[in-house]
C-alpha cells in the first residue's frame, strides 16, 4: 500500500511533530508498505490569511496514493477517499485558547467569524475521515467538547525502543528533555540544596533560548553544589541521550500540566527507571504512581528533595519502582507495529 503522511510545515522550523512524521514513515515502511511525507507550508500570522491557506490544502489533488494519514491543522483538510486522522492538535487558538483569550484571532465579529470557519472545516474533515485518533486524552476531550466528536486515543510509541534496554543503576538522577520554565529544571536544582549528600543530578537537553540556559547555570552556581549537579545543555545525539537514561538511578520530569505521557517518562519507564514527578504535571501522572513506579510530590523544593534523597537511601526500593514502571509501560501495549496497524485499518 502507498501511504502518504500529510503534515504541516512551519518553514525552517523542526520539532516534535516533524520527528513523529518521520518515525511514522519509517515504521509504515517497516510494516511492508511504501510511505512518504507531504509537508504543507502553514503560517498562522497574520490570522486573516488562515482561511486562504485552508483553501490551499483543500484544493490540492492527490494521485498515486492509497491511504492518507494526516496529523495537524490545516494539513488534515486535504481530500482523499481513504483518510485517517492522527490528530496531534487542532488549531487551539480557535478552541480552548480562544476561550481563555490566548488567541491570535482578532476580537469581535471578525474573530468569531474566523473561529467559525475553522470549526466548520474541522467538523467536515472529522466526518469525512475513515478513522480519527488523537495523540492524547486531553486532545480527545477537546474534540468531544468543541466538535461533539468521539475519537479514539492512540498514544505515540517510543522511537528506537532497543536503545533503552540493558542499562545499569548509576549514581545520578537524570532530568532530560527541553530546558525551559514550563519544564522547571530550576526547581530540581533548588531541591538539591535540601537533598542528602550522596544525591547527584544530571540535567541534559536543548535550552529553548540562551536565557533559559543562563538562568539554570546561575541557579547551579548560587546553590554551590560543586560536582553534585552536572549540566549538559545542548541538543543531544539520540545515542547520548539514551546512554544518560540507561545509566541513571532514577529519572525526574516535572513539566507543568503536560497533555501527554511525555517521551521522557515513556523512555525512562521502558528503561526500567524509577520516576519522579509533581502532582500538577498532568499527563505524566499516567505513568508515575506514588510508591509504585516512583514518587509524586508537591511542586516544592523540600518535598522534591525528600524524593530525590530516597532514591539513594533505599536503592532496592528504587530498583523495584523502576521494574514496576517498565511493567506498567509494557502493559499499555504502545508500540509501532500495533500503532501502524490501527492507523491503516
Amino acid at each position: 500500500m502507498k501511504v502518504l503522511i500529510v503534515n504541516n510545515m512551519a518553514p525552517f522550523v523542526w520539532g516534535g511533530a516533524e520527528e513523529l512524521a518521520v518515525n511514522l514513515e519509517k515504521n509504515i515502511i517497516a510494516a511492508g508498505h511504501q510511505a512518504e511525507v507531504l509537508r504543507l507550508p502553514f503560517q498562522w500570522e497574520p490570522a486573516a490569511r488562515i482561511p486562504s491557506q485552508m483553501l490551499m490544502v483543500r484544493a490540492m489533488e492527490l494521485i498515486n496514493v492509497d491511504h492518507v494519514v494526516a496529523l495537524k491543522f490545516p494539513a488534515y483538510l486535504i481530500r482523499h477517499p481513504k483518510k485517517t486522522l492522527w490528530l496531534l492538535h487542532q488549531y487551539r487558538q480557535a478552541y480552548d485558547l480562544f476561550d481563555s483569550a490566548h488567541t491570535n484571532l482578532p476580537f469581535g465579529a471578525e474573530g468569531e467569524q474566523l473561529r467559525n470557519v475553522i470549526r466548520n472545516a474541522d467538523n467536515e474533515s472529522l466526518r469525512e475521515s475513515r478513522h480519527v485518533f488523537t495523540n492524547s486524552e486531553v486532545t480527545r476531550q477537546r474534540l468531544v467538547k468543541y466538535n461533539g466528536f468521539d475519537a479514539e486515543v492512540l498514544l505515540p510509541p517510543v522511537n528506537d525502543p532497543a536503545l533503552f534496554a540493558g542499562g545499569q543503576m548509576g549514581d545520578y538522577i537524570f532530568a532530560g528533555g527541553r530546558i525551559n520554565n514550563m519544564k522547571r529544571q530550576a526547581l530540581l536544582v533548588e531541591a538539591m540544596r535540601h537533598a542528602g549528600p550522596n544525591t547527584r543530578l544530571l540535567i541534559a537537553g536543548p535550552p529553548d533560548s540562551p536565557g533559559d540556559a543562563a538562568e539554570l547555570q546561575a541557579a547551579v552556581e548560587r546553590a554551590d553544589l560543586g560536582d553534585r549537579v552536572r549540566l549538559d545543555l545542548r541538543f543531544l545525539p539520540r545515542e547520548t541521550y539514551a546512554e544518560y537514561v540507561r545509566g541513571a538511578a532514577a529519572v525526574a520530569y516535572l513539566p507543568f500540566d503536560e497533555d501527554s505521557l511525555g517521551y521522557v517518562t515513556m523512555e525512562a519507564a521502558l528503561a526500567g527507571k524509577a520516576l519522579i514527578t509533581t502532582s500538577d504535571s498532568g499527563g505524566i501522572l499516567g505513568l508515575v504512581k506514588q510508591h509504585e513506579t516512583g514518587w509524586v510530590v508537591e511542586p516544592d523544593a523540600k518535598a522534591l528533595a525528600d524524593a530525590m534523597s530516597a532514591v539513594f537511601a533505599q536503592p532496592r526500593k528504587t530498583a523495584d519502582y523502576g521494574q514496576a514502571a517498565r511493567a506498567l509501560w509494557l502493559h499499555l501495549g504502545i508500540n509501532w507495529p500495533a500503532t501502524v496497524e490501527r492507523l491503516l485499518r
Partner: protein
Amino acid sequence: MKIALCSTFVPFLFGGARNIVDWLQTMLEQEGHHVERIYLPENDSPDLLFQQMAAFRWIDLSAADRVICFRPQSHLIQHPHKILWFIHHVRVFYDLYDSPYRGFPDDAKHRGIRDALVAADNVALREAKHVFTNSRVVSARLSKYNQVDSEVLYPPVFQAERFHCRGHSDEIVYVCRLEHHKRQHLLIEALALTTTPVRVRLCGSSAGPHYPNELNELITRLKLQQRVSMENRWVTEEEKVDYLADCLAAAYLPLDEDSYGYPSVEASHASKAILTTTDSGGVLELVSDGINGYVADPTPAALAAALDKLYRERATTIAMGARARARLDELNISWSHVLERLLA
C-alpha cells in the same frame, strides 16, 4: 541564507526532477545555508489544473529569504525574491499541444484553458527576479511561447568526482531506464550490422515488463546473446561508476530529449566518448560529432558504422573521451557555477 526549494511531484515516483532539487539542497547545506524543501502534489489533468494553481498562489513562504522553483506549476508561488530554475512547461498545452501526446480534443474549452494557462504563466514568470532553465531547448520554448528571456544553467550530477576512467574495454554501455523512447532497441539492431566484435551493455529499470521483454526477444532473434549484457534493474551507483570506468564509450539515444540527460554527463565525467543521434534533442548541446563522440542518423546502419569506428579507431575514441571531460568545463557544468548563479 534561508532558502526554500519548491517543486511539484507525484507521490512515490522518483527520478530526475527530484534529483535536481535534492542534490541542490545538499550542496546549499554544505555551504551553510538553511534549506527547506517543499514538494507539492500536482495532477496535470486539464479540469483540475486551475484549482491547484490557485492553491500555489496562496502559499506563504515569507519566512524564506529567497525561493527557487523548479517543476511546473511551482513557479506560481509568490515571493519577493523568486528565482526560477524552470525545467519544463505543462507541455501538453505548449509544444506537445499539436502532438499525439495531447490526450484531449482541440476544442474551444481546451483552447480556452490553454490561453488562460499561458496568461497565468506569463504573470508568474515575470514576477521572478531571474529565470534559469536546464537547456537551450527549454529556453527557446520560454522565448517562443511566453516571450521571456532566460539563462541556461546546466544541472550537474551529484558527487561527480566519483566518476573516473580506468581503461577501455570492448563494451559500449547504455545506463538509462529501459523505455521505448530511450531506444535501446536501435542500439541492438545496429549491433547486428557491425563488422567488429564490439559489445553492448544495457542497464536500467523499466515502468513495465513489456519493453524489456521485447529487447530480450530482439537479442535472441538477432543471435546477439554473446555480445549483449542486459540488466533490467536499477543498478547501484557503485556499479554504474565501475561500468563507466571500464567501458570503451557510452551510448545515449533518446528521442527528442529536453535536456542533455544525466547519462551523457556521467559518461563525460568518466572521460568516455558518447554515441548519440541527430534527433536526440538536448543531448546535442553537449555532444558534437567527431569531437567528444559521434552523432549518427537514428538508423541501425548509421549507428553500426559509428559503433565499428569507436571500436576500430581506438586512439580517436580515447581522445574524444578526454575531450568529453573538457567539454563539461566549457559548458560550466559544475555545482560551484550553479550556486554562484542561483545565489547572485
